[in-house]
């Protein structure tokens, strides 16, 4: 294939992904009475539940527990929705994969972008709440896009790997939710990991979400610069996962069409 033809195809795919993302968000909006409001209400309700359990009932001793929880859950829910929506995307669209010749990677990408658009709204709200409750904007905000970008790459990588495999092993669906649940607790979203014994800490530091959430809290709550070396390790892990996922999907694409209906 010639250069310009490939470039034209790429642009075409960009247009397709962007319009599909718009279509996805638009369709979602018209599927409910409150539409866009759910983008905010749903995560807010979720946060309310954790607040009730961990702050009110269990009485967390954590200082600044509410902002701690809000930042953690905001970053976590973005990751989780990318993984669960993106992870099913190819499986859900198998009918389309059989009909037209398109790179299968487009389907999880659309889901990830749609979830990221929603995340931007929630992040805006989170920042407003933090300002109002005494955590003012500060210079370290400059580092926030870096942290968010690494999280996006990690979430996309995880989603691609799952999206590639779920069509062959649909049973994975039953496991994904459980694994995500465990991962949330291991990432210090609802309670701090400071009680993790020393020998294990080294391994916990490899968990991208734990590192990213910690960096996010540092920036938004304490004007603390991220731990760049930990961030670099996590960025490498994320890139490797992203590459592996993309490779897997490209590799398996010819076989999706041949799966039994």
């Amino acid at each position, binding site marked *: 294939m010639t250069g310009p033809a490939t470039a034209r195809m790429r642009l*075409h795919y960009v247009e397709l992904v962007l319009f599909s993302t718009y279509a996805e968000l638009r*369709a979602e909006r018209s599927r409910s009475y409150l539409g866009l409001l759910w983008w905010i209400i749903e995560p807010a309700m979720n946060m309310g539940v954790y607040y009730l359990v961990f702050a009110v009932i269990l009485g967390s001793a954590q200082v600044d527990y509410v902002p701690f929880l809000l930042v953690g859950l905001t970053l976590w829910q973005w990751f989780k929705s990318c993984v669960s929506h993106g992870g099913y995307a190819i499986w859900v669209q198998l009918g389309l994969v059989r009909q*037209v010749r398109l790179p299968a990677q487009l389907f999880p990408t659309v889901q990830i972008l749609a979830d990221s658009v929603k995340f931007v709204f929630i992040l805006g709200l989170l920042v407003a709440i933090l300002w109002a409750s005494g955590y003012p904007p500060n210079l370290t905000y400059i580092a926030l896009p870096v942290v968010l970008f690494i999280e996006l790459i990690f979430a996309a990588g995880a989603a691609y790997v799952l999206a590639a495999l779920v069509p062959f092993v649909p049973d994975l669906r039953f496991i994904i939710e459980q694994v995500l649940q465990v991962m949330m607790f291991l990432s210090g979203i609802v309670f701090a990991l400071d009680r993790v014994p020393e020998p294990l800490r080294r391994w916990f530091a490899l968990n991208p979400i734990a590192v990213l959430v910690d960096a996010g809290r540092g920036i938004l709550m304490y004007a603390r610069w991220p731990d760049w070396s930990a961030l670099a390790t996590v960025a490498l892990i994320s890139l490797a996962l992203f590459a592996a996922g993309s490779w897997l999907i490209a590799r398996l694409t010819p076989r999706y069409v*041949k*799966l039994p209906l």
Partner: protein
Amino acid sequence: MSEPIITLENVGVAFNARLRAGSPRFWALEDVSLRLARGQRLGVIGRNGAGKSTLLRTLAGILVPDRGRVVRAAVSCQLLSLSVGFMHHLSGRDNAILSGLMLGLRRREIENRLAAILEFSELGDFFEQPISSYSTGMLLRLGFSVAMQVEPDVLLIDEVLAVGDADFQQKSGSALRQRIQGGTTVVFVSHGDAQIRQVCDSVLWIEHGRSVMLGAVDTVLGAYHAAPHVAKAQ
């Protein structure tokens, strides 16, 4: 005959029978060979399950052969598919754009053709309404109008030549025939002799995933109907 734009050499395509590791595979196409020249209008006949649709999807590049070889010049090949990627809650207009993009059109190209789509589909004000409010006929009209905007070098047609109610069948059928007679290369799968005679200049007969005969329309149709299984089947 001019230089072929697509050549299939002893192509076989296998599917997994079930969703299990090591489940048996069955060969929907066993051994099919053909040469398609620019401007050729090839009909494909054969009984149900002979592999006709699999052949079309292989030509479209959706299926990759498990054996044999496909040689393709730099041409676009597209299955005439209606309502690709349609989403219930979106308007006719948004669905036309989405579907057009999925069928390979650029955003600008499809935007330029929205007026033509609206006119051909006769949807009027419904064009701005979600397609979940459409009747089956309206959906087919929109689907066909969008599909017709795609102008591939090789048009692949699986059975459907016309859709909708009597009036629209007339209209869609003649639009498609006009396209075919306009010099597009066509591969047309059909059960109907009359349609094959009307549209095609050559015919491929496949049976159990193998090409049996490739040649002039009358010759191949004659041999196909003379074959013993056809008498039994009908």
